[in-house]
């Protein structure tokens, strides 16, 4: 990690280390005492990065990034919310145990500096089981799940690609006034919002105190988006199909003439 950091000529390093006997994210400046650096705990560095960037000024930052961090950073950079020119990635390949714990299908960063890539299953048992259910069983299942939601917003605040300061789900426009549980629409609206950017990091599901299988929902919607538009979140180039014309044109900067 140190070698990669040196090579990247960054001013800061975002990683995790042991703090007071626990693991915590840390932002190191050049020359800081690194302490006991840790890569064995899946912190969503992209999410933390978004929060520290406003305080960095012109400093360049290196981030220890797993594949999901990398994709989230790409999604945010594409939207102009991060400046990819100032960010270097120290690619961290997750180990088999981590991959299986995250039910990750895409664990290998585009450039690996730490660890070795392991194979991942493209399918997810939880998703397969849910899709095997009949429509009425699904409704029964998800109604029960959504009823558990206590609207803590853990899923939104831990999401690396959820970027709004104020969430419209905090208002009563689309969800009933009564409050908790927030009704059937809450997690579906979130699904639509994440449809063109979710990187399947699983933070929402990990954060959920009610154990709602949100990662499975994300994976199912991502699959729909891929089927409908051939679009997969996580690259820094492709404009979201939900924003473009049927020819894939956006009004901005696209002078392609047919």
């Amino acid at each position: 990690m140190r070698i990669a950091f040196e090579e990247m000529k960054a001013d800061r390093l975002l990683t995790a280390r042991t703090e007071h006997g626990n693991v915590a994210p840390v932002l190191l400046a050049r020359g800081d005492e690194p302490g006991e650096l840790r890569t064995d705990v899946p912190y969503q560095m992209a999410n933390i990065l978004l929060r520290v960037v406003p305080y960095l000024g012109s400093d360049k930052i290196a981030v220890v990034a797993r594949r999901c961090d990398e994709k989230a950073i790409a999604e945010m950079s594409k939207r102009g919310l991060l400046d990819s020119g100032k960010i270097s990635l120290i690619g961290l390949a997750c180990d088999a145990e981590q991959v299986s714990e995250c039910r990750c299908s895409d664990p290998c960063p585009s450039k690996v500096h730490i660890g070795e890539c392991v194979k991942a299953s493209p399918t997810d048992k939880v998703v397969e089981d849910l899709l095997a259910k009949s429509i009425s069983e699904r409704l029964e299942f998800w109604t029960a799940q959504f009823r558990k939601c206590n609207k803590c917003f853990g899923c939104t605040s831990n999401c690396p690609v959820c970027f709004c300061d104020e969430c419209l789900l905090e208002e009563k426009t689309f969800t009933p006034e009564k409050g908790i549980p927030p009704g059937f629409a809450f997690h579906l609206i979130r699904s639509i919002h994440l449809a063109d950017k979710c990187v399947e990091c699983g933070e929402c599901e990990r954060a959920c105190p009610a154990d709602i299988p949100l990662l499975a929902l994300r994976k199912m919607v991502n699959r729909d988006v891929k089927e409908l538009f051939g679009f997969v979140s996580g690259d820094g180039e492709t404009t979201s199909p939900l924003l473009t014309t049927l020819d894939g044109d956006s009004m901005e900067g696209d002078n392609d003439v047919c």
Partner: protein
Amino acid sequence: MTVRIGVFICHCGHNIASTVDVEDVVEYAKGLPGVVYSGRNLYSCSQEGLTSIKESIKNNELDRVVVAACTPRTHEPVFRRACEQVGINKYLFEFVNIREHCSWIHTKEKEEATKKAKKLVAMGVAKVALLEPQEEGESDVVPKAVVIGAGLSGLSAAAALLNQGIETHIVEKEATVGGILRDIAVIGPDDVDAQELIRSLTETVEKSPKAHLHLSSKVTELKGFIGNFELTIEGGGKEETVQAGAVIVATGGVEHRPEGEYGFGELKGVITQLELEKILGSGELGARRIVIINCVGSRQPGREYCSRVCCNASLKNAVRVLDTDPDASVTIVHRDIMSCGTVAEELYREASDRGVRFVRYGLDQRPEVSSEGEQLVVEVFDETLDEKIDLESDLVVLATPIVSPGDSSETSKLLKVPRDKHGFFLEAHVKLRPVEFATDGVFVCGSARWPVSARECIWQGQAAAAKASIPISEGKVVIEAITAVVDPEKCAACGNCVISCPYDAIEIVDTESGRAARVSEAQCKGCGTCVAACHNDAIQQKGFSSRQLGAMIDALIRATAEVSR
């Protein structure tokens, strides 16, 4: 905030009242949240109806109004005006359609139609309660115009603008003006000298100190909005930026080249109508037996339209051939002769009287052209004789349609104006706004829009000029207040709206609350595409906010429960 809503249910004579129980709906509306007055009118839009609405607004100190009657598409301005006359902002008015969308389509279901009318009124009341007063913006107009294309329609438009004293830039991609007319000597059906027409229009342009003719040039960029366009004109290796209040698209059409059809491009002596025009103009005809085939490449699958000018051109050219050589034989092989109007009809009779032969063919049995030595043979199934005949000829003329020029898609993207499936530009409304685009301040005329005759080019050019001169002479444009507006406090500057806006009207800027989207009011057309792209409701369309539409959904659910009780 307490609101004082007035609801007015219209009988529309029997139109609504014979199906919907108006009295019942009036009573129901009285119980809706915020309603302090509910009444009915025999004809709300009549002078009497409007007076009574205004009286009720005053007497009951109403601050918002719902009229349940016909369609806002025709009558909204009437009621908005009435509201304004008694001091209610016209954007605090909501129209509920219980005629077209209820009584007329449910004539036999009185009970259900009445229930539906109640629901629709409840939805309207829910929306009006949340409406906000709006101010219509005003914007200055640059007193200049740009005409793209210097064919007959473009020149006509430019001349009309210049005659009104409006500074006009004319941008022509070719090195000379005139367009298609350059190849034509005489315009039918009434024998107008084409070159003289071009000459006189060009003279008007050249004499005017306010004209700027850009030849061998094209517009490469258009920014801005009605009243304040900024165009980049590129030509002769130079780039010029021009400000304009209005833009007229007169890019015209081109003659379809029917490569490979009827021996065109393969057999000597098979030419297009425009090539015949040139030959006739030169006075060196040579050929004595001439067959003109109409509808080549038009009125068939893939290009279904009638090009409208070819029949008259064929008739005119047939007569001109006979003028040049009275002993020549001319046959017009056609599918139908469309020579509408008295002058053209006269021309048809003349051609017929002077011996031009008309042979009708069908789409399933098209003529075939082959060569036998020096001469051409057109084999055609004559529908009248019910048999095949051979027409020997020296010259076969293919009357092909006017098609959209290859670069019209480029123009369309540049100006952000729509085209139809054939590549012609699409006007805002075929009857009500025929020379305007839906984009304010951009106009269209001539064959850019649809194949038209020379006469129509002049009319449309002048019409477009007249329309374009309205904002220029008024000096101000009013912007309807249904535009999108950003709450910079909420905006996360993700750019979803920027990408999805069909008008490029949104940009991300630095604001007091950090980076946020900003809508250029004058560029915004109020479609709301950005609104649906925004994740946290930071961008809203005035008069169609998500709170207002959300309230309508809630009201529908509530009303359904109430009326089915």
